Protein backbone atom coordinates (compact mmCIF):
# COMPACT_ATOMS: atom_id res chain seq x y z
CA UNK A 1 0.00 0.00 0.00
CA UNK A 2 1.32 3.38 -0.82
CA UNK A 3 0.28 6.90 -0.39
CA UNK A 4 1.46 9.33 -2.98
CA UNK A 5 2.35 12.95 -2.85
CA UNK A 6 0.03 13.53 -5.72
CA UNK A 7 -3.09 13.42 -3.66
CA UNK A 8 -6.14 15.30 -2.64
CA UNK A 9 -8.92 14.56 -0.21
CA UNK A 10 -8.56 12.01 2.54
CA UNK A 11 -6.03 9.32 1.81
CA UNK A 12 -7.02 5.74 2.44
CA UNK A 13 -4.48 4.53 4.98
CA UNK A 14 -4.54 0.82 5.56
CA UNK A 15 -2.04 0.92 8.41
CA UNK A 16 -3.46 2.73 11.43
CA UNK A 17 -0.97 4.93 13.24
CA UNK A 18 -2.06 6.59 16.51
CA UNK A 19 -1.97 10.34 16.23
CA UNK A 20 -1.94 13.02 18.89
CA UNK A 21 -4.49 14.97 16.83
CA UNK A 22 -4.27 18.68 16.15
CA UNK A 23 -3.37 20.94 19.07
CA UNK A 24 -4.90 24.40 19.44
CA UNK A 25 -1.72 25.79 17.86
CA UNK A 26 -2.24 23.56 14.81
CA UNK A 27 -5.87 24.68 14.56
CA UNK A 28 -4.70 28.31 14.63
CA UNK A 29 -2.01 27.56 12.02
CA UNK A 30 -4.60 25.91 9.79
CA UNK A 31 -6.94 28.90 10.09
CA UNK A 32 -4.05 31.22 9.23
CA UNK A 33 -3.17 29.11 6.19
CA UNK A 34 -6.81 29.25 5.01
CA UNK A 35 -6.68 33.04 5.27
CA UNK A 36 -3.39 33.11 3.35
CA UNK A 37 -5.01 31.03 0.60
CA UNK A 38 -7.93 33.44 0.34
CA UNK A 39 -5.53 36.40 0.32
CA UNK A 40 -3.54 34.74 -2.47
CA UNK A 41 -6.67 34.26 -4.59
CA UNK A 42 -7.88 37.82 -4.04
CA UNK A 43 -4.52 39.44 -4.74
CA UNK A 44 -3.47 37.34 -7.74
CA UNK A 45 -6.90 37.45 -9.38
CA UNK A 46 -6.98 41.22 -8.81
CA UNK A 47 -3.57 41.52 -10.49
CA UNK A 48 -4.78 39.52 -13.53
CA UNK A 49 -7.90 41.66 -13.82
CA UNK A 50 -6.03 44.94 -13.22
CA UNK A 51 -3.50 44.15 -15.94
CA UNK A 52 -5.88 42.80 -18.56
CA UNK A 53 -8.84 45.13 -17.96
CA UNK A 54 -7.31 48.35 -16.66
CA UNK A 55 -3.82 48.03 -18.11
CA UNK A 56 -2.16 48.57 -14.74
CA UNK A 57 -0.38 46.43 -12.15
CA UNK A 58 -0.50 46.18 -8.37
CA UNK A 59 3.32 45.87 -8.43
CA UNK A 60 3.38 43.74 -5.27
CA UNK A 61 1.75 40.50 -6.39
CA UNK A 62 4.86 38.45 -7.17
CA UNK A 63 6.56 39.55 -3.96
CA UNK A 64 3.64 39.10 -1.55
CA UNK A 65 2.48 35.92 -3.39
CA UNK A 66 5.91 34.42 -2.72
CA UNK A 67 5.78 35.40 0.97
CA UNK A 68 2.30 33.90 1.32
CA UNK A 69 3.48 30.66 -0.27
CA UNK A 70 6.47 30.46 2.08
CA UNK A 71 4.21 30.97 5.10
CA UNK A 72 1.64 28.49 3.77
CA UNK A 73 4.31 25.87 3.08
CA UNK A 74 5.90 25.96 6.51
CA UNK A 75 2.80 26.59 8.65
CA UNK A 76 0.87 23.79 6.94
CA UNK A 77 3.55 21.19 7.77
CA UNK A 78 2.51 20.82 11.42
CA UNK A 79 -1.16 20.78 10.35
CA UNK A 80 -0.46 17.90 7.96
CA UNK A 81 1.58 16.05 10.60
CA UNK A 82 -1.09 16.39 13.28
CA UNK A 83 -3.78 15.15 10.88
CA UNK A 84 -1.64 12.22 9.73
CA UNK A 85 -1.73 13.64 6.19
CA UNK A 86 1.89 12.81 5.31
CA UNK A 87 1.93 9.77 3.10
CA UNK A 88 4.07 6.71 3.34
CA UNK A 89 4.76 3.49 1.49
CA UNK A 90 3.05 0.91 3.68
CA UNK A 91 4.39 -2.20 2.01
CA UNK A 92 6.61 -3.18 4.94
CA UNK A 93 4.55 -1.54 7.68
CA UNK A 94 1.43 -3.61 6.98
CA UNK A 95 3.43 -6.80 7.50
CA UNK A 96 4.73 -5.82 10.95
CA UNK A 97 3.09 -6.62 14.27
CA UNK A 98 1.40 -3.61 15.94
CA UNK A 99 4.23 -3.29 18.48
CA UNK A 100 7.00 -3.53 15.87
CA UNK A 101 5.14 -1.06 13.69
CA UNK A 102 4.85 1.39 16.58
CA UNK A 103 8.54 1.05 17.50
CA UNK A 104 9.57 1.63 13.88
CA UNK A 105 7.27 4.67 13.69
CA UNK A 106 8.79 6.10 16.86
CA UNK A 107 12.27 5.61 15.40
CA UNK A 108 11.21 7.38 12.20
CA UNK A 109 9.68 10.23 14.17
CA UNK A 110 12.86 10.62 16.22
CA UNK A 111 14.95 10.82 13.04
CA UNK A 112 12.48 13.31 11.57
CA UNK A 113 12.60 15.35 14.77
CA UNK A 114 16.40 15.48 14.72
CA UNK A 115 16.50 16.61 11.08
CA UNK A 116 13.67 19.12 11.59
CA UNK A 117 15.37 20.48 14.70
CA UNK A 118 18.58 21.15 12.77
CA UNK A 119 16.65 22.79 9.93
CA UNK A 120 14.70 24.94 12.43
CA UNK A 121 17.98 26.13 13.90
CA UNK A 122 19.19 27.22 10.45
CA UNK A 123 15.89 28.89 9.51
CA UNK A 124 15.75 30.89 12.73
CA UNK A 125 19.42 31.82 12.26
CA UNK A 126 18.63 33.16 8.76
CA UNK A 127 15.76 35.33 10.03
CA UNK A 128 17.86 36.65 12.93
CA UNK A 129 20.75 37.48 10.60
CA UNK A 130 18.36 39.36 8.30
CA UNK A 131 16.97 41.24 11.29
CA UNK A 132 20.42 42.20 12.55
CA UNK A 133 21.58 43.24 9.08
CA UNK A 134 18.27 45.09 8.51
CA UNK A 135 17.87 43.39 5.12
CA UNK A 136 14.93 44.61 3.06
CA UNK A 137 13.49 43.34 -0.22
CA UNK A 138 14.66 45.34 -3.27
CA UNK A 139 11.04 46.09 -4.19
CA UNK A 140 8.63 49.03 -3.85
CA UNK A 141 7.37 47.52 -0.60
CA UNK A 142 10.90 47.26 0.83
CA UNK A 143 9.68 44.49 3.14
CA UNK A 144 12.01 43.73 6.05
CA UNK A 145 13.05 40.20 5.06
CA UNK A 146 13.17 38.81 8.59
CA UNK A 147 9.39 39.08 8.71
CA UNK A 148 8.49 36.54 5.98
CA UNK A 149 11.63 34.53 6.77
CA UNK A 150 10.52 34.10 10.37
CA UNK A 151 7.42 32.22 9.16
CA UNK A 152 9.77 29.43 8.01
CA UNK A 153 11.41 29.09 11.44
CA UNK A 154 8.08 29.26 13.26
CA UNK A 155 6.51 26.68 10.91
CA UNK A 156 9.43 24.28 11.31
CA UNK A 157 9.38 24.74 15.10
CA UNK A 158 5.65 23.91 15.10
CA UNK A 159 6.44 20.80 13.07
CA UNK A 160 8.99 19.75 15.73
CA UNK A 161 6.33 20.31 18.39
CA UNK A 162 3.81 18.22 16.41
CA UNK A 163 6.42 15.44 16.02
CA UNK A 164 7.08 15.44 19.78
CA UNK A 165 3.35 15.12 20.47
CA UNK A 166 3.14 12.32 17.90
CA UNK A 167 6.03 10.45 19.55
CA UNK A 168 4.38 10.86 22.96
CA UNK A 169 1.08 9.48 21.56
CA UNK A 170 2.84 6.44 20.13
CA UNK A 171 4.75 5.77 23.34
CA UNK A 172 1.48 5.97 25.27
CA UNK A 173 -0.08 3.54 22.79
CA UNK A 174 2.85 1.13 23.24
CA UNK A 175 2.60 1.30 27.02
CA UNK A 176 -1.15 0.80 26.84
CA UNK A 177 -0.58 -2.26 24.67
CA UNK A 178 1.95 -3.66 27.16
CA UNK A 179 -0.47 -3.08 30.01
CA UNK A 180 -3.23 -4.85 28.09
Amino acid at each position, binding site marked *: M*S*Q*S*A*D*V*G*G*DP*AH*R*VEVPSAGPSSVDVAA*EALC*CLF*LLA*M*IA*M*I*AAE*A*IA*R*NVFGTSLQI*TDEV*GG*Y*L*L*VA*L*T*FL*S*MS*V*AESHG*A*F*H*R*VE*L*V*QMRLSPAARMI*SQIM*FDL*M*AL*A*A*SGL*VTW*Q*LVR*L*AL*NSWRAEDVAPTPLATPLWL*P*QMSMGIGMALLCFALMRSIAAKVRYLRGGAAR
Partner: protein
Amino acid sequence: MTPGVELVFILVVFLALLCAGMTIPFAILVPSVLYLLTHAGLAGLKGLGLVSWGSMDSFTLSAIPLFILMAEILQESKLSLRVYRGLSTLVSWMPGGLLQTNIAGCAIFAAISGSSVVTAASIGRVALPELQRRNYSPRLSAGSLAAGGTLGILIPPSIAMIVYGTFTETSVAKLFMAGVMPGLLLTSMFMCYIACHALVQPSVSPIVKKKYSAGEILAAVVDVIPFVVLIGGTIGSIYSGLVTPTEAAAVGCVLAMIIARFWGEFNFAVLKHALQTTVRVCGNILFIVYAAYAFSYAISYAGVGEQITQFLVGLKLSRLEFFGALFVLYTVLGCLVESLGMIVVTVPLLYPVLLQYGVDPIWFGVILVLFIEMGQISPPIGINLFVIQSIWNGKLSDVVTGTIPFHLIMFVLLGLLVLFPDIAMWLPSRVAAGP
Protein backbone atom coordinates in the same frame (compact mmCIF):
# COMPACT_ATOMS: atom_id res chain seq x y z
CA MET B 1 34.14 7.97 1.31
CA THR B 2 34.32 9.55 -2.11
CA PRO B 3 31.46 11.90 -3.03
CA GLY B 4 30.09 9.32 -5.49
CA VAL B 5 29.97 6.60 -2.83
CA GLU B 6 28.41 9.07 -0.39
CA LEU B 7 25.70 9.82 -2.92
CA VAL B 8 24.96 6.15 -3.52
CA PHE B 9 24.84 5.65 0.24
CA ILE B 10 22.37 8.51 0.63
CA LEU B 11 20.19 7.24 -2.22
CA VAL B 12 20.14 3.81 -0.59
CA VAL B 13 19.19 5.41 2.75
CA PHE B 14 16.40 7.32 0.97
CA LEU B 15 14.97 4.20 -0.69
CA ALA B 16 15.34 2.15 2.51
CA LEU B 17 13.52 4.76 4.63
CA LEU B 18 10.83 5.14 1.97
CA CYS B 19 10.19 1.42 1.64
CA ALA B 20 10.39 0.86 5.41
CA GLY B 21 7.50 3.27 5.88
CA MET B 22 8.90 6.67 6.84
CA THR B 23 6.63 9.48 5.69
CA ILE B 24 7.70 10.68 2.23
CA PRO B 25 8.83 14.26 2.96
CA PHE B 26 10.99 13.07 5.85
CA ALA B 27 12.36 10.17 3.79
CA ILE B 28 13.79 12.89 1.51
CA LEU B 29 14.75 15.46 4.18
CA VAL B 30 16.51 13.11 6.62
CA PRO B 31 19.05 11.70 4.07
CA SER B 32 19.68 15.25 2.82
CA VAL B 33 20.57 16.52 6.28
CA LEU B 34 22.54 13.35 6.94
CA TYR B 35 24.51 13.84 3.71
CA LEU B 36 25.38 17.44 4.60
CA LEU B 37 26.42 16.38 8.11
CA THR B 38 28.59 13.48 6.95
CA HIS B 39 30.19 15.60 4.27
CA ALA B 40 30.94 18.82 6.14
CA GLY B 41 29.63 18.50 9.69
CA LEU B 42 27.42 21.25 11.13
CA ALA B 43 29.09 23.76 8.77
CA GLY B 44 27.40 21.94 5.88
CA LEU B 45 24.00 23.03 7.18
CA LYS B 46 24.80 26.74 7.06
CA GLY B 47 23.45 27.20 3.54
CA LEU B 48 20.12 25.55 4.33
CA GLY B 49 18.47 28.76 5.47
CA LEU B 50 19.20 30.65 2.26
CA VAL B 51 18.35 27.61 0.13
CA SER B 52 14.99 27.29 1.93
CA TRP B 53 14.21 30.96 1.36
CA GLY B 54 15.45 31.04 -2.23
CA SER B 55 13.54 27.92 -3.24
CA MET B 56 10.17 28.42 -1.59
CA ASP B 57 9.84 32.19 -2.10
CA SER B 58 8.37 31.41 -5.52
CA PHE B 59 5.39 32.93 -7.28
CA THR B 60 5.30 30.00 -9.75
CA LEU B 61 4.87 27.43 -6.97
CA SER B 62 1.90 29.43 -5.66
CA ALA B 63 -0.09 27.81 -8.48
CA ILE B 64 0.00 24.45 -6.64
CA PRO B 65 -2.25 25.33 -3.68
CA LEU B 66 -4.55 27.34 -5.92
CA PHE B 67 -5.10 24.52 -8.43
CA ILE B 68 -5.65 22.09 -5.53
CA LEU B 69 -8.24 24.43 -4.04
CA MET B 70 -10.01 24.85 -7.38
CA ALA B 71 -10.48 21.07 -7.69
CA GLU B 72 -11.50 20.75 -4.03
CA ILE B 73 -14.21 23.40 -4.42
CA LEU B 74 -15.68 21.54 -7.39
CA GLN B 75 -15.42 18.19 -5.65
CA GLU B 76 -16.91 19.41 -2.35
CA SER B 77 -19.79 21.13 -4.10
CA LYS B 78 -20.70 17.83 -5.81
CA LEU B 79 -20.11 19.13 -9.32
CA SER B 80 -18.24 15.95 -10.28
CA LEU B 81 -21.59 14.17 -9.90
CA ARG B 82 -23.20 16.54 -12.39
CA VAL B 83 -20.45 16.25 -14.97
CA TYR B 84 -20.55 12.46 -14.74
CA ARG B 85 -24.33 12.46 -15.11
CA GLY B 86 -24.15 14.76 -18.13
CA LEU B 87 -21.38 12.82 -19.81
CA SER B 88 -23.13 9.48 -19.27
CA THR B 89 -25.94 10.79 -21.50
CA LEU B 90 -23.69 12.41 -24.07
CA VAL B 91 -21.40 9.39 -24.65
CA SER B 92 -24.08 6.71 -24.16
CA TRP B 93 -24.13 5.94 -27.91
CA MET B 94 -20.53 4.69 -27.83
CA PRO B 95 -19.69 1.00 -27.35
CA GLY B 96 -18.72 0.60 -23.72
CA GLY B 97 -21.40 2.92 -22.32
CA LEU B 98 -20.54 4.13 -18.84
CA LEU B 99 -16.95 2.90 -19.19
CA GLN B 100 -16.51 5.60 -21.82
CA THR B 101 -17.98 8.07 -19.34
CA ASN B 102 -15.22 7.11 -16.89
CA ILE B 103 -12.52 8.16 -19.34
CA ALA B 104 -14.33 11.26 -20.63
CA GLY B 105 -15.16 12.28 -17.04
CA CYS B 106 -11.57 11.78 -15.93
CA ALA B 107 -10.29 13.80 -18.91
CA ILE B 108 -12.64 16.69 -18.11
CA PHE B 109 -11.88 16.58 -14.38
CA ALA B 110 -8.18 16.35 -15.23
CA ALA B 111 -8.47 19.68 -16.99
CA ILE B 112 -9.46 21.39 -13.74
CA SER B 113 -7.43 19.29 -11.33
CA GLY B 114 -3.67 18.98 -11.23
CA SER B 115 -3.74 15.66 -9.44
CA SER B 116 -4.32 12.10 -10.60
CA VAL B 117 -5.65 11.03 -7.25
CA VAL B 118 -8.24 13.79 -7.06
CA THR B 119 -9.33 12.88 -10.59
CA ALA B 120 -9.56 9.14 -9.91
CA ALA B 121 -11.28 9.67 -6.54
CA SER B 122 -13.74 12.29 -7.78
CA ILE B 123 -14.96 10.31 -10.77
CA GLY B 124 -14.48 6.91 -9.10
CA ARG B 125 -16.75 7.75 -6.14
CA VAL B 126 -19.54 8.71 -8.51
CA ALA B 127 -18.95 6.02 -11.13
CA LEU B 128 -18.18 2.80 -9.27
CA PRO B 129 -21.53 2.33 -7.47
CA GLU B 130 -23.35 2.93 -10.77
CA LEU B 131 -21.05 0.57 -12.71
CA GLN B 132 -21.50 -2.18 -10.11
CA ARG B 133 -25.27 -1.68 -10.03
CA ARG B 134 -25.45 -2.07 -13.81
CA ASN B 135 -23.19 -5.15 -13.88
CA TYR B 136 -20.28 -3.72 -15.84
CA SER B 137 -17.09 -5.79 -15.83
CA PRO B 138 -15.49 -5.05 -12.42
CA ARG B 139 -12.02 -5.42 -13.87
CA LEU B 140 -12.55 -2.99 -16.73
CA SER B 141 -14.51 -0.59 -14.51
CA ALA B 142 -11.75 -0.35 -11.93
CA GLY B 143 -8.97 -0.40 -14.54
CA SER B 144 -10.52 2.40 -16.60
CA LEU B 145 -10.94 4.60 -13.52
CA ALA B 146 -7.43 3.99 -12.16
CA ALA B 147 -5.89 4.62 -15.59
CA GLY B 148 -8.29 7.45 -16.49
CA GLY B 149 -7.33 9.16 -13.24
CA THR B 150 -3.71 9.40 -14.36
CA LEU B 151 -4.82 11.85 -17.05
CA GLY B 152 -4.98 14.31 -14.15
CA ILE B 153 -1.27 15.06 -14.34
CA LEU B 154 -0.91 14.98 -18.12
CA ILE B 155 -3.81 17.21 -19.12
CA PRO B 156 -3.12 20.69 -17.71
CA PRO B 157 -3.12 21.94 -15.03
CA SER B 158 -0.62 19.53 -13.54
CA ILE B 159 1.10 19.73 -10.16
CA ALA B 160 3.84 17.42 -11.45
CA MET B 161 4.55 19.82 -14.32
CA ILE B 162 4.63 22.86 -12.00
CA VAL B 163 7.22 21.11 -9.82
CA TYR B 164 9.25 19.96 -12.84
CA GLY B 165 9.06 23.46 -14.36
CA THR B 166 10.22 25.07 -11.12
CA PHE B 167 13.14 22.68 -10.74
CA THR B 168 14.33 23.02 -14.33
CA GLU B 169 13.37 26.69 -14.74
CA THR B 170 11.23 25.69 -17.71
CA SER B 171 8.11 27.65 -18.69
CA VAL B 172 5.16 26.08 -16.86
CA ALA B 173 2.78 27.59 -19.44
CA LYS B 174 4.62 25.77 -22.24
CA LEU B 175 4.73 22.55 -20.23
CA PHE B 176 0.98 22.79 -19.71
CA MET B 177 0.43 23.27 -23.43
CA ALA B 178 2.78 20.37 -24.23
CA GLY B 179 0.53 18.10 -22.17
CA VAL B 180 -2.66 18.98 -24.06
CA MET B 181 -2.23 16.97 -27.29
CA PRO B 182 -0.71 13.85 -25.64
CA GLY B 183 -3.48 14.07 -23.01
CA LEU B 184 -6.21 14.20 -25.64
CA LEU B 185 -4.50 11.47 -27.66
CA LEU B 186 -4.24 9.22 -24.61
CA THR B 187 -7.91 9.88 -23.80
CA SER B 188 -8.87 8.87 -27.37
CA MET B 189 -6.70 5.76 -27.22
CA PHE B 190 -8.27 4.70 -23.91
CA MET B 191 -11.76 5.25 -25.34
CA CYS B 192 -10.91 3.35 -28.55
CA TYR B 193 -9.62 0.43 -26.50
CA ILE B 194 -12.81 0.33 -24.40
CA ALA B 195 -14.96 0.50 -27.54
CA CYS B 196 -13.03 -2.37 -29.20
CA HIS B 197 -13.13 -4.43 -26.01
CA ALA B 198 -16.88 -3.91 -25.68
CA LEU B 199 -17.45 -4.85 -29.34
CA VAL B 200 -15.30 -7.99 -29.14
CA GLN B 201 -16.55 -9.03 -25.71
CA PRO B 202 -20.04 -7.53 -25.23
CA SER B 203 -20.42 -9.07 -21.76
CA VAL B 204 -18.08 -6.43 -20.26
CA SER B 205 -20.66 -3.73 -20.79
CA PRO B 206 -24.46 -4.16 -20.70
CA ILE B 207 -26.15 -2.91 -23.85
CA VAL B 208 -28.61 -0.14 -23.09
CA LYS B 209 -30.72 0.95 -26.03
CA LYS B 210 -32.23 4.05 -24.57
CA LYS B 211 -33.22 6.95 -26.77
CA TYR B 212 -32.66 10.25 -25.06
CA SER B 213 -35.10 13.09 -25.70
CA ALA B 214 -33.88 16.51 -26.82
CA GLY B 215 -34.68 17.82 -23.35
CA GLU B 216 -32.50 15.15 -21.69
CA ILE B 217 -29.62 15.90 -24.04
CA LEU B 218 -29.99 19.61 -23.34
CA ALA B 219 -29.96 18.92 -19.59
CA ALA B 220 -26.79 16.84 -20.06
CA VAL B 221 -25.12 19.70 -21.95
CA VAL B 222 -26.08 22.08 -19.13
CA ASP B 223 -24.42 19.67 -16.66
CA VAL B 224 -21.16 19.72 -18.61
CA ILE B 225 -21.09 23.37 -19.71
CA PRO B 226 -19.76 24.81 -16.40
CA PHE B 227 -16.68 22.64 -16.69
CA VAL B 228 -16.16 23.64 -20.30
CA VAL B 229 -16.35 27.32 -19.27
CA LEU B 230 -13.88 26.78 -16.45
CA ILE B 231 -11.45 24.79 -18.59
CA GLY B 232 -11.73 27.31 -21.42
CA GLY B 233 -11.20 30.15 -18.96
CA THR B 234 -8.07 28.75 -17.34
CA ILE B 235 -6.31 26.90 -20.16
CA GLY B 236 -7.44 29.39 -22.81
CA SER B 237 -6.13 32.37 -20.86
CA ILE B 238 -2.74 30.70 -20.42
CA TYR B 239 -2.58 29.77 -24.12
CA SER B 240 -3.45 33.28 -25.21
CA GLY B 241 -0.74 34.70 -22.96
CA LEU B 242 -3.21 36.81 -21.00
CA VAL B 243 -2.21 35.34 -17.66
CA THR B 244 0.51 33.24 -16.05
CA PRO B 245 -0.37 29.74 -14.79
CA THR B 246 -0.47 31.09 -11.22
CA GLU B 247 -2.88 33.85 -12.21
CA ALA B 248 -4.99 31.34 -14.15
CA ALA B 249 -5.19 29.24 -10.98
CA ALA B 250 -6.38 32.22 -8.90
CA VAL B 251 -8.93 33.27 -11.50
CA GLY B 252 -9.94 29.61 -11.81
CA CYS B 253 -10.64 29.49 -8.05
CA VAL B 254 -12.91 32.54 -8.34
CA LEU B 255 -14.69 31.01 -11.35
CA ALA B 256 -15.00 27.66 -9.54
CA MET B 257 -16.70 29.39 -6.59
CA ILE B 258 -19.13 31.18 -8.91
CA ILE B 259 -19.89 27.99 -10.85
CA ALA B 260 -20.27 25.96 -7.65
CA ARG B 261 -22.64 28.60 -6.25
CA PHE B 262 -24.99 28.40 -9.24
CA TRP B 263 -24.56 24.77 -10.41
CA GLY B 264 -23.57 22.90 -7.26
CA GLU B 265 -23.98 22.89 -3.48
CA PHE B 266 -21.74 25.73 -2.35
CA ASN B 267 -21.87 27.57 0.96
CA PHE B 268 -19.50 28.73 3.69
CA ALA B 269 -19.18 25.22 5.18
CA VAL B 270 -18.20 23.79 1.78
CA LEU B 271 -15.62 26.56 1.25
CA LYS B 272 -14.22 26.04 4.75
CA HIS B 273 -13.90 22.29 4.21
CA ALA B 274 -12.27 22.79 0.80
CA LEU B 275 -9.79 25.26 2.30
CA GLN B 276 -8.91 22.94 5.19
CA THR B 277 -8.42 19.96 2.88
CA THR B 278 -6.24 22.09 0.61
CA VAL B 279 -4.06 23.18 3.54
CA ARG B 280 -3.52 19.55 4.63
CA VAL B 281 -2.75 18.39 1.09
CA CYS B 282 -0.40 21.36 0.61
CA GLY B 283 1.34 20.57 3.88
CA ASN B 284 2.29 17.26 2.29
CA ILE B 285 3.04 18.29 -1.30
CA LEU B 286 4.87 21.55 -0.57
CA PHE B 287 6.92 19.84 2.14
CA ILE B 288 8.01 17.26 -0.43
CA VAL B 289 8.99 20.06 -2.81
CA TYR B 290 10.90 21.80 -0.01
CA ALA B 291 12.64 18.58 1.07
CA ALA B 292 13.58 18.02 -2.57
CA TYR B 293 15.28 21.41 -2.71
CA ALA B 294 17.23 20.46 0.41
CA PHE B 295 18.15 17.16 -1.30
CA SER B 296 19.18 19.01 -4.45
CA TYR B 297 21.32 21.39 -2.37
CA ALA B 298 22.92 18.46 -0.56
CA ILE B 299 23.97 16.67 -3.76
CA SER B 300 25.24 19.87 -5.34
CA TYR B 301 27.17 20.79 -2.17
CA ALA B 302 30.10 18.54 -3.03
CA GLY B 303 29.74 18.91 -6.78
CA VAL B 304 28.43 15.37 -7.09
CA GLY B 305 25.89 16.46 -9.66
CA GLU B 306 28.69 17.61 -11.97
CA GLN B 307 30.58 14.35 -11.44
CA ILE B 308 27.50 12.33 -12.33
CA THR B 309 26.95 14.43 -15.45
CA GLN B 310 30.57 13.91 -16.49
CA PHE B 311 30.32 10.19 -15.77
CA LEU B 312 27.14 9.71 -17.79
CA VAL B 313 28.37 11.85 -20.68
CA GLY B 314 31.69 9.94 -20.52
CA LEU B 315 29.81 6.70 -21.19
CA LYS B 316 29.28 8.08 -24.73
CA LEU B 317 25.87 6.47 -25.09
CA SER B 318 24.03 7.16 -28.31
CA ARG B 319 20.82 9.17 -27.96
CA LEU B 320 18.77 5.99 -28.40
CA GLU B 321 20.82 4.08 -25.81
CA PHE B 322 20.43 7.01 -23.42
CA PHE B 323 16.65 6.97 -23.87
CA GLY B 324 16.71 3.18 -23.38
CA ALA B 325 18.55 3.65 -20.09
CA LEU B 326 16.06 6.33 -19.01
CA PHE B 327 13.20 4.03 -19.96
CA VAL B 328 14.53 1.24 -17.73
CA LEU B 329 15.36 3.65 -14.89
CA TYR B 330 11.93 5.29 -14.80
CA THR B 331 9.99 2.07 -15.31
CA VAL B 332 11.75 0.55 -12.30
CA LEU B 333 11.53 3.75 -10.25
CA GLY B 334 7.82 4.04 -11.09
CA CYS B 335 7.27 0.79 -9.22
CA LEU B 336 9.27 1.92 -6.17
CA VAL B 337 9.02 5.68 -5.73
CA GLU B 338 5.88 7.82 -5.67
CA SER B 339 5.19 10.51 -8.23
CA LEU B 340 6.75 13.73 -6.95
CA GLY B 341 9.57 11.79 -5.34
CA MET B 342 10.50 10.48 -8.76
CA ILE B 343 10.77 14.00 -10.18
CA VAL B 344 12.56 15.63 -7.30
CA VAL B 345 15.18 12.96 -6.82
CA THR B 346 16.06 12.30 -10.46
CA VAL B 347 15.64 15.64 -12.22
CA PRO B 348 18.41 17.56 -10.40
CA LEU B 349 20.80 14.69 -11.26
CA LEU B 350 19.68 14.04 -14.83
CA TYR B 351 18.75 17.50 -16.07
CA PRO B 352 22.32 18.61 -16.91
CA VAL B 353 22.83 15.32 -18.81
CA LEU B 354 19.65 15.91 -20.80
CA LEU B 355 21.01 19.27 -21.91
CA GLN B 356 24.26 17.60 -23.01
CA TYR B 357 22.20 15.24 -25.19
CA GLY B 358 20.25 18.15 -26.62
CA VAL B 359 16.96 16.88 -25.18
CA ASP B 360 14.25 19.54 -25.11
CA PRO B 361 13.25 20.08 -21.46
CA ILE B 362 9.60 20.69 -22.41
CA TRP B 363 9.39 17.42 -24.33
CA PHE B 364 11.20 15.57 -21.55
CA GLY B 365 8.73 17.03 -19.03
CA VAL B 366 5.87 15.34 -20.88
CA ILE B 367 7.80 12.05 -21.12
CA LEU B 368 8.55 12.20 -17.40
CA VAL B 369 4.90 12.84 -16.58
CA LEU B 370 3.92 9.85 -18.71
CA PHE B 371 6.38 7.67 -16.77
CA ILE B 372 4.88 8.96 -13.53
CA GLU B 373 1.41 8.11 -14.82
CA MET B 374 2.55 4.56 -15.46
CA GLY B 375 4.08 4.43 -11.99
CA GLN B 376 0.74 5.45 -10.53
CA ILE B 377 -0.89 2.28 -11.85
CA SER B 378 2.13 -0.01 -11.34
CA PRO B 379 2.10 -2.43 -8.43
CA PRO B 380 3.26 -2.53 -5.68
CA ILE B 381 2.91 1.18 -4.83
CA GLY B 382 0.79 2.64 -7.66
CA ILE B 383 -1.37 5.13 -5.80
CA ASN B 384 -4.35 5.07 -8.17
CA LEU B 385 -4.73 1.32 -7.68
CA PHE B 386 -5.27 1.89 -3.99
CA VAL B 387 -7.50 4.92 -4.45
CA ILE B 388 -9.92 2.89 -6.56
CA GLN B 389 -9.61 -0.15 -4.30
CA SER B 390 -10.46 2.01 -1.27
CA ILE B 391 -13.68 3.16 -2.96
CA TRP B 392 -15.18 -0.15 -4.07
CA ASN B 393 -15.69 -3.62 -2.60
CA GLY B 394 -13.68 -5.57 -5.17
CA LYS B 395 -10.25 -7.15 -5.10
CA LEU B 396 -6.99 -5.25 -5.57
CA SER B 397 -5.89 -7.90 -8.05
CA ASP B 398 -8.88 -6.98 -10.24
CA VAL B 399 -7.83 -3.32 -10.25
CA VAL B 400 -4.25 -4.29 -11.13
CA THR B 401 -5.32 -6.66 -13.92
CA GLY B 402 -7.79 -4.10 -15.23
CA THR B 403 -5.08 -1.48 -15.68
CA ILE B 404 -2.69 -3.69 -17.69
CA PRO B 405 -4.16 -2.86 -21.14
CA PHE B 406 -4.11 0.85 -20.27
CA HIS B 407 -0.50 0.50 -19.19
CA LEU B 408 0.34 -0.96 -22.59
CA ILE B 409 -1.48 1.91 -24.32
CA MET B 410 0.68 4.35 -22.36
CA PHE B 411 3.78 2.57 -23.66
CA VAL B 412 2.42 3.04 -27.18
CA LEU B 413 1.96 6.76 -26.56
CA LEU B 414 5.48 6.92 -25.15
CA GLY B 415 6.80 5.38 -28.37
CA LEU B 416 4.74 7.83 -30.44
CA LEU B 417 6.15 10.78 -28.48
CA VAL B 418 9.71 9.56 -29.08
CA LEU B 419 9.06 9.04 -32.79
CA PHE B 420 6.94 12.16 -33.27
CA PRO B 421 7.96 14.77 -30.69
CA ASP B 422 5.72 17.32 -32.39
CA ILE B 423 2.72 15.66 -30.76
CA ALA B 424 3.87 17.41 -27.61
CA MET B 425 5.86 20.29 -29.07
CA TRP B 426 3.44 21.70 -31.64
CA LEU B 427 1.15 23.53 -29.22
CA PRO B 428 3.85 25.08 -26.98
CA SER B 429 5.49 26.58 -30.06
CA ARG B 430 2.27 28.51 -30.64
CA VAL B 431 1.72 29.80 -27.12
CA ALA B 432 1.57 33.58 -27.00
CA ALA B 433 4.25 35.24 -24.85
CA GLY B 434 2.92 35.58 -21.31
CA PRO B 435 2.98 38.62 -19.05
